[in-house]
């Protein structure tokens, strides 16, 4: 009996009535710490393409040339909102949620290094990789086809019928050599390292 009275009293309240008929929780806003699709932060892109190299989703990010200069473009429907591009960018061109704030506070970053591996059994020494390499093109503009050159500063060159990696540290990870190899002998590994600046830097 007591509980019946309680319920009658509960339901007789005007507030209950008004809420029952009108209450709506509006579609909620995303909190500020949510990693949404990255947007441009207004800083200048230097076309280092680290965002594209870090991106794990196929076809999610492109860096396009616009009248304002290079600009990364996010494709919805492909982007998985992981935020790696935001962290990998050295200039902070993209921003998403609190990521830029955190990286600035804690000194965290993602750094790239590249390893070039040539399979000696598959390599025919054709030199396509050395000719196609954009770093080589800058160093030695006169490079003959076949990739034989005596310049010591080259990244790749052909020596005694085999491709030779001379200066691995000059690699920018563009994978042009990989696409031009007819035999899939050369592979570029993009190594991502999660680093944090030491205590003294903070």
């Amino acid at each position, binding site marked *: 009996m007591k509980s019946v009275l309680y319920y009658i009293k509960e339901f007789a309240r005007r507030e209950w009535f008004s809420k029952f008929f009108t209450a709506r929780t509006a579609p909620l806003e995303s909190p500020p710490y949510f990693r949404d699709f990255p947007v441009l932060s207004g800083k200048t892109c230097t076309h280092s393409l680290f965002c594209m190299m870090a991106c794990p989703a196929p076809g999610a990010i492109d860096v396009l040339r616009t009248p304002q200069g290079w600009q990364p473009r996010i494709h919805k429907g492909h*982007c998985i909102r992981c935020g790696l591009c935001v962290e990998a960018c050295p200039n902070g061109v993209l921003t998403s949620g609190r990521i830029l704030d955190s990286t600035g506070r804690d000194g965290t970053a993602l750094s790239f290094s590249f390893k070039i591996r040539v399979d000696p059994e598959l390599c025919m020494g054709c030199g396509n990789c050395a000719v196609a390499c954009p770093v080589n093109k800058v160093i030695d503009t006169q490079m003959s086809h076949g990739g034989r050159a005596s310049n010591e500063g080259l990244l790749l060159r052909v020596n005694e019928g085999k491709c030779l990696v001379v200066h691995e540290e000059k690699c920018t990870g563009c994978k042009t050599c990989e696409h031009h190899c007819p035999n899939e002998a050369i592979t570029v590994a993009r190594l991502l390292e999660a680093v944090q600046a030491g205590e003294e830097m903070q």
Partner: protein
Amino acid sequence: MTLLQSIKNYVRSKSIHVSYVDVGSCNGCDIEVLACLAPRYDIEQYGIYVHNNPREADILLVIGAYTPGWEEKLEMVWNKIPEPKVAIAIGNCPISGCLFNRPHTYIDPPVSKHIPIAASVPGCPPRPTEILNAVLSLAPVVFKDYEVKKR
């Protein structure tokens, strides 16, 4: 527009039955659709009722990247839904195949090759509010004047 038609429009926009079908996702979008049921988002206050019976549904939420196990079966589910009906793709998988769309995969995206998709909600996974907003914004539009459009 007749009075009957306007009543139908009103009723259809206020009472939507939603069914979801998982054609090979990672479960992430599944649980975000389930989270729409939570009192925080409370999808039922808008007259949207989520259950899993395609024969009673108006809107089909397609989740996942279309695995070979669903060949013909998805079309069967789609045909069982009574008219008027509409399908929404939830998440990246039905749109583009997300991360699974790589060489050597088994999946066959996008889902719009197999059934007509009216709208899509990008994100991996989308937030419940995004799913909710998509269903709410679509519902009054697609079912409006259905009988007139059919003629």
